[in-house]
Each structure stands twice: as C-alpha cells, then as structure tokens.
C-alpha cells in the first residue's frame, strides 16, 4: 500500500483490520520493573538470560535485553501520585505497547476514558505518552521501534556490550498475568477491549500450566493478557490488583527449563504445578518475581 493512500482509499479488508486493531498495535516494546534493589533484580534477569545493555542518561534506570525482549529496571523515585515507588520487592510497574502512532494511540485511549499520566521528562529526553493501568502501573505507547529506538535517545550503552544479544532457547514475550478483585473480570475485559482492542479467547483455548481466569489476545495477535480473579470463597474487601508476572514463550519448554536450571534458575515442582512440555513456573525471587514459561512455537 502506498504511504500517501488515505483512509478513504482503504479496502474493506483493510478497514476491518483497522477496526480490530485500532491502535495498530504491534507487540510489547518493554516491560518495566520498579525496585529499590536494581542490582539484585539485575542478577535474577541475567539468570533468566537477559543481558545488561544500557543505563538511562539522567536516572537510575537500567535496560536489559535478550532477543526481542526489553526489560527496564527502574530504581528512580518519581514521587508522583498513583505511581509505583521503588521498594525492595520488585513489581511490574509498566508495559509499553508498540503502536503505529503513539500520539494517536494516546488520544484514542484518552477519548475513551483512560487516565493521563503526566510526563516528567528532562531536557532532550523523549516524552513517551502513558496512561494509568491496573493498580499503580502505567501503559506506555511507543512508535519508535523500527528504524531507531527510544533507547538510542535516553540511554547510554554499556561499554563493549553486544546491544542485540540473541534470546536464550528462542525465548520471547508471551504475555502478562494480571490479578484482579472479585467480580472484576467483565470490567477489566471491557478496559482492554475498549481502549486497546484486545479480544477474549474462548475458555477452552488455554496455554501453559496455570489455566486460570480469562485470556485476552492482543489485537496484533502477538501476546496475551491473563486476568486471574481470586479463588472462590476468599473474600478480600480490598484486593490488590496488579501485574503479577510475565509469561515467556519458548518452542521447547523442557529444553528451556534445562538451560535455565544450568544458569541457576529454580522451578516450582509440586503435585499441582510442575515443569512439563506445556509450561513451567520459576521459583519466586526477591519476594515476588517469577516467570512463567509457556509452549509457543514462535520465536
């Protein structure tokens, strides 16, 4: 399609694609953790196959990478309301979505009721638009991921580092698990379908070894969100809603488990949850950081 072609010239097929992927989403650009112990989390990430790549120019923020996956470790206390303040136990503070036009995606979400996150950029830094997500988390929109990246501007490469290390055993983003409160399944589903165009997968379509809750597929069909509500019978009047863990896809789970074990990663091996061809769950590190492996042929 020629670049100058406008919306009036789009075919029906292309219009359907626009309607089903309104932000032209194209996967996850990065996942951000917040912690006051960035080195400790860095060690866990390195065990998982990530490499330290770069440091932020003005803040205590580190970039880790393997293959197409970027992880930001943020130890900078922003002091903003409704934001994650770095604490000893790392938490998933943000996900960044790749979109065709970040400003347009931001506008689209705000027009439909998303909360703006006020930006706090320093001189010559990129202003990456964000909205509030679950709990104190944020959802960023990034459109510079093809010809040049956001890290080229805001980060300084570590000396002598390979900026694009290959992924261990074909690991790639599979998705994020979100814990939600009682009776919140329909509401959170509406949040992701209305603002981003996610689709609900049928209940029989399941991945991995922890088949709970509801799975939403990204409109670009490249990753998933899993919404997990509290166990029946447990009433918590003030449930903590948050991004609980990330899921990593691999074409061969048991091969990945073996490779990660060699690097020192422990896995949950109980009667209910254990490593198998469908998936595996790492032990919890630093009081709450765990990774789920899911069988997924893409790499």
């Amino acid at each position, binding site marked *: 399609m020629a670049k100058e072609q406008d919306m009036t010239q789009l075919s029906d097929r292309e219009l359907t694609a626009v309607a089903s992927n309104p932000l032209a989403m194209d996967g996850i650009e990065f996942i951000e953790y917040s912690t006051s112990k960035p080195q400790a989390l860095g060690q866990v990430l390195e065990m998982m196959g990530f490499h330290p790549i770069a440091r932020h120019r003005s803040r205590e923020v580190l970039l880790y990478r393997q293959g197409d996956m970027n992880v930001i470790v943020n130890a900078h206390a922003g002091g903003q309301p409704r934001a994650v303040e770095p604490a000893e136990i790392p938490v998933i503070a943000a996900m960044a979505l790749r979109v065709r036009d970040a400003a347009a995606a931001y506008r689209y979400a705000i*027009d*439909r*009721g*998303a*909360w703006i996150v006020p930006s706090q950029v320093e001189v010559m830094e990129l202003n990456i638009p964000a909205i*509030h*997500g*679950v709990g104190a988390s944020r959802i960023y929109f990034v459109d510079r991921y093809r010809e040049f990246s956001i890290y080229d501007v805001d980060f300084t490469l570590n000396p002598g580092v390979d900026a694009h290390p290959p992924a261990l055993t074909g690991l790639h983003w599979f998705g994020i698990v979100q814990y939600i*409160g009682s009776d*919140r399944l*329909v*509401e*959170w589903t*509406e*949040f992701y379908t*209305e*603002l981003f165009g996610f689709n609900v997968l049928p209940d029989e379509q399941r991945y991995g070894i922890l088949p709970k809750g509801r799975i939403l597929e990204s409109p670009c069909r490249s990753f998933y969100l899993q919404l997990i509500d509290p166990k029946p019978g447990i009433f918590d009047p*003030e449930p903590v*809603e948050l991004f609980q863990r990330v899921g990593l896809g691999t074409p061969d789970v048991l091969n990945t488990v073996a490779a990660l074990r060699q690097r020192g990663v422990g896995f949950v091996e109980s009667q209910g949850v254990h490593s198998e061809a469908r998936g595996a769950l790492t032990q919890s590190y630093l009081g709450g950081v765990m990774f789920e492996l899911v069988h997924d042929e893409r790499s």
Partner: protein
Amino acid sequence: MSARNPGMATVVNATLPYILDFGMDTISLAGTLPAKLAAVRDAGFSQIMLSARDVVGHSDGIDSAAHAVRASGLRVTGFQVLRDFEGLSGHLHEYKVDVAKSMLEMCHAVGGKVLLVCSSTSTHATDDADAMARDLRKLAMLALPLGIKVAYEGLSWGRTINEFTTAWDIVRRANATNLGLGVDSYHIFAAKTGLDELDFLDPDKIFLVQLADFMWQEVRTLEERIATARHFRVFPGEGVHSSALADLVLRLERIGYRGDYSFEVFNDDYQQMPLPTVAARARQSAIWLAEDVLRRAVPLPSQMRLQRTGA
C-alpha cells in the same frame, strides 16, 4: 458526656442485622465529618453516603478525612455528586472530565465503590441520547481502574433526562458494565413516574437506591421541585408519601434488588437539630421499612424449617 458531642449524652444503639442495607446520608446532618460519622454509627447504622464537601471541607485535609471514614468502621454507600457531566463538548467537556477525575479520586480515597451522577440541567448540553451515553461510558471507563461503579440518576428537574425511565435508556445505550442506575424516590414522586415502570429495570443494574419522603402532595413547578428537594425532604415514613415509598421498596424487592438503600434527606430543620436526634429519626425510619414494610423481623417459614432441621 461524650467528647464527640459536648453537652449531650450519646446514645449508642444496637446494630440490628435487618437494617444493614439502610444507611444515612451526611447531607442530613450538620457539623463536622467526625461528628457525622459518630452519630450515624451510634444510631446503629453500618453505612453512610458521603458528599465531596465532607471530604474537601474536613479541617485536616483529604487524607485525614479518608482516615476518619475508614477508622469509623462504616461502609461507604456511595459518594456524591457529579453534576452536569453528560452531553457537553469541547472545553466544557474537558473541564467536566477534570472535575469527574477529582471526584473519583476522592471517592477512591474514602473507600467508596459507587459515584453518584445526576442527569444534566445544563442548557449547554446536547439532548442527543447517543452523545450522553458516550460521555457516561467514558466516565465509567475512568472509574473502572479504581473499582468504582457509576450510578446515573434522573434528576426530576434535569433538562433532558428527568425520570428513571429515560435515565435507564441512556444507561442501556452506554452499555458499560460499571455504569448503572441511581434511583431516588423523591424524583419519582415529584415527576409522578409510574411505579410499574420499575418492573422493566434489571435489578443488577440498579447501583443505588435513595429514599426520602416529603411533606406535600404535589410539587408542580420545576422551581418548587428544586426547593422541596433541597430543603424540605424528610425520612421515609415522616411525610405524606409513606404508602408510595412502601410500594416502591416492595416493588424493588420483588424485581430482585438486593443493594443498599440510602436516606437522601435534605432538610433545613435537621441541619439545626442535634445530630443524635436526627440520626434517631433515621433509625426509626429504617426500622419502619425493615419491620413494617419488608417484614424482615418476622422469621420466614423456610428459615424456621431450616432451624428445626439443623437442631
């Protein structure tokens, strides 16, 4: 003597399990937020409807107000009130979104789960139903991450939406999970909306019911409606609409409504009476509704059977 009410003995009433879904509204009471919380709790209520003014006007600030509410042990029935939100455009819409965000943040801070929104009275607002629905859907989305439901109420002097029937039409058009209806008996009686219309509501989409009586049979003009609503309401059973109120509550029960009932009683006289005296009147009203109207104090035959089986 009580430190909370100097010069007056505090009467602490037992909490009756069958009035747990009835609550008072702070707008019926004069005084400070802590005094209101204490009066409502001491009258045996377990919940309270809060107004943004209670929180904003608290002398020690919003955080302290939120702490006082949580420490009181009272559940927050809802938080009021966002006015004239729907149907605006351009900078007026943007302005109202900012106001809504502020209300939602306060509602969240005090542990409120329901934000009350009254239908617009603004002459600047459109009467296009789809535009109103779109705005309310956006408001519901703003409320969603905070775990707040939005109850939309048809104000009897609303410009376009002035009955619960038309408010229900907008709620259905908006089709958002956390957007539902706020039903206020005053506006039903003032607008003379037929109670049969309640049968067409989905009980799960009624997020709040507010009850009030008043002293005259008819309120003919809009001005009279506004004046009566804001100054002359009384607790259910105290006015001339008691039988209609009983009918309303019974109909809501019959269609399956199991949510809260809050006494939305604006009354200038109650504003200059001791808080425990006003709260005692509210308690009498709750007991009247629970015992005489809904007959909850009488054990149901099925419950007696269950007890015998278990013995």
